[in-house]
């Protein structure tokens, strides 16, 4: 299949925006005094907009509405995932994109999978986790990797709610995953406190990743049950385990005993990676 001229234009535009954003982010992350409200990354040119409403359902968080015959973006709700632009749905090219300053740029880092985190250099919100465990040996027998993805599926999260969760988990002595973007913003690993300047920001989701000795798994589940009532969003949970030579998954029994449902579909690393990590049991 070949790209049409319009598709090329959208594609090249987006690539340029990503490159500009990476540069700006690196330049501006040190400047904590900039307001997150002074400039937004995605706007609608009211002169161009014809109020056709085609873009409205494409917004992942319902931030686009029509008023006075033109489309408006609720900048507080917009998580800058970029779907409105990439979809190419606007017939008059009314969406405008300008690089946003820190901390607003956090929204695209966590919500737009094509934006690489300047801290982790990995596109997307997470890390390699089980994908490379046969080589990295990251999830070892006796330990489990845990991920709490705030805002997923598709509800979005405030960074205040992310902080509520990191602060609830930190006292358990969890080891926050060093290569995860959220971990870069935790200023105190003992308390789970995040940088103050990001607390008014939002994202489509944010993954809190950590490792724990398997005996701490029940304490984590208890904290999560308590936090269900404390946060104003949803969160999706995931447990990563090295499967034992007899084929058993020790975390499963603990979870079952606690009445936690493990879904039938999962991610399976099939052990084809080399050089192979040598696990001890």
């Amino acid at each position, binding site marked *: 299949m070949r790209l049409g001229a319009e598709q090329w234009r959208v594609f090249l535009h987006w690539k340029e925006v990503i490159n500009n954003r990476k540069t700006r982010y690196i330049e501006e992350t040190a400047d904590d005094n900039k307001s997150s409200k002074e400039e937004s990354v995605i706007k609608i040119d009211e002169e161009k907009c014809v109020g056709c409403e085609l873009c409205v359902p494409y917004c992942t968080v319902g931030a686009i509405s029509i008023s006075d015959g033109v489309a408006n973006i609720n900048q507080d709700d917009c998580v800058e995932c970029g779907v409105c632009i990439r979809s190419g749905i606007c017939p008059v090219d009314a969406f405008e994109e300008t690089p946003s300053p820190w901390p607003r740029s956090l929204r695209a880092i966590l919500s737009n999978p094509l934006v690489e985190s300047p801290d982790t250099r990995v596109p997307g919100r997470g890390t390699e986790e089980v994908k490379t465990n046969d080589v990295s040996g990251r999830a070892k027998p006796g330990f489990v990797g845990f991920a709490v993805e705030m805002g997923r599926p*598709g509800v979005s999260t405030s960074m205040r709610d992310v902080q509520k969760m990191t602060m609830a988990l930190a006292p358990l002595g969890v080891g926050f995953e060093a290569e995860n973007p959220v971990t870069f913003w935790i200023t105190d690993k003992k308390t789970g406190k995040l940088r103050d300047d990001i607390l008014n920001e939002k994202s489509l989701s944010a993954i809190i990743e950590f490792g724990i000795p398997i005996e701490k798994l029940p304490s984590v589940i208890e904290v999560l049950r308590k936090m269900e009532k404390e946060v104003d969003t949803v969160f999706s949970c995931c447990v990563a385990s090295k499967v034992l030579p007899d084929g058993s998954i020790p975390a499963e029994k603990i979870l079952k005993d606690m009445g936690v449902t493990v879904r039938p579909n999962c991610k399976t690393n099939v052990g084809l990676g080399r050089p192979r990590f040598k696990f001890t049991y």
Partner: protein
Amino acid sequence: MTHTLHRQGTVESLSRDYPMVTVACHAVPESVKGAGPKIAKFLEIAKKNGAINVGDMKQGSIYFDNLDINKICDNVSDTTIAECVFDNLEGVKKTLLELKELDMGLPMVVSGLLEPVSKMLKEIGLEVHTVAQSLGVWGKTELLPRKEVLEITTMCGHHMVSPRLVEKFIDDIKKGKNTPEKAAKVLTKQCCCGIFNEHRTAELLRKACS
């Protein structure tokens, strides 16, 4: 963790939904150097064996950017994450058999129902090495879209597929203004990575409209 996890639906429906993912291990630099051509080989093999969507996090997918599979393979970088999705386990099995034979050393992940995947791996002499298991959705679940919509939107783990767009398409299909197949193609295009299952989407749209 993890954009191919947390897909929702019945076991019957999920039996036609198997994403595969690969990335070289960045913690071991020698495994990253030269990984690009190996990743390209994986995508070629997957496509040949019937993968219905294929993509690469740094370039996009065959739907998202209308990229040609050959073009994706020609430009795969050592550090990318490459993905595809199958609507049957047989294609995954054939792909893994070829990869096992080639022994390129690329870490490989299969997402989907653990029981049949585990059985298939045993048949071809591979192992369930490490698993990431979903514990579902917690918290204010009253904020979620309805189940029929979530079964579609959760196929893009980055949630680039808007629930409002799915609702609009369901409405349009019911009114005869759209078809499940056409709507599924548009929804698949919103996912950048190549893991959105167009065939299952059409099936779920049909079911939601019935």
